[in-house]
């Protein structure tokens, strides 16, 4: 029995939406990072599905790209968080309120 590609694409869309909603509603910066990872992996799943459907390895190469992206973004994000952690107690996005206007 084979699973039709549309199921993978739907799963990808659902994961992406969960990540996007999480990024927008959660206040803990670390959880926000996890949501970013979730969205990136949703994109990965979509790329792999297309690669299988179209018989094209390009999609799998794209996954390598996205993995690097995920690593680079998370490292920078952690760096920023560490810089903020060192100065204040918690790390929630609500604590970040000095710049307004």
């Amino acid at each position: 029995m084979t699973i039709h590609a549309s199921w993978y694409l739907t799963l990808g869309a659902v994961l992406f939406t969960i990540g996007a909603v999480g990024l927008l509603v959660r206040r803990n910066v670390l959880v926000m990072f996890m949501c970013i990872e979730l969205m990136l992996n949703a994109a990965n799943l979509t790329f792999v599905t297309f690669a299988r459907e179209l018989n094209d390895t390009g999609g799998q190469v794209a996954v390598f790209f996205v993995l690097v992206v995920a690593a680079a973004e998370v490292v920078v994000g952690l760096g920023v968080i560490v810089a903020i952690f060192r100065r204040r107690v918690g790390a929630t996005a609500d604590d970040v309120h000095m710049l307004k206007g």
Partner: protein
Amino acid sequence: MGSLDSYIPIFLLIVLGIAFAGLSFVGSRLLAPQRPTAAKEAPYECGIVPTHEPSSRFPVRFYLVAMIFIIFDIEVIFLFPWAVVFRQLHTFGLVEVLVFAAAVFVSFVYLISNGALDWGPIKRIRPVATADEVRTTASTVRRHGSPGASGEAA
């Protein structure tokens, strides 16, 4: 001038999304019973009111090690596809990978030279927050260290 026909599905989706979210809020506001009490609005329903934030579980240094790990993690990811086809790529592929590995290694050299791996006693930059002298519900329920916490307690 063209038409916006092709954007109609996207536009409809946005409208539907906003309408759904908005209606959920309005619906819950209208339907839910509202009998607030002071106890219900407190962040903790039972137990003693916390005096200061629990200290974070990991020292910041662990994050640093995680970041350094990711550099090599990523390097290996790129070595796998290269290893599959390196016979076809000949010298070009070898040179490319060496350049890539050298560039990754430079970041490691940078980390070492900046003392990222020097383990030692941790210098505490901010002092541990302690409880206020005057403790009321209003002052201790609020987060310590947030501006105005003690000012509003008075």
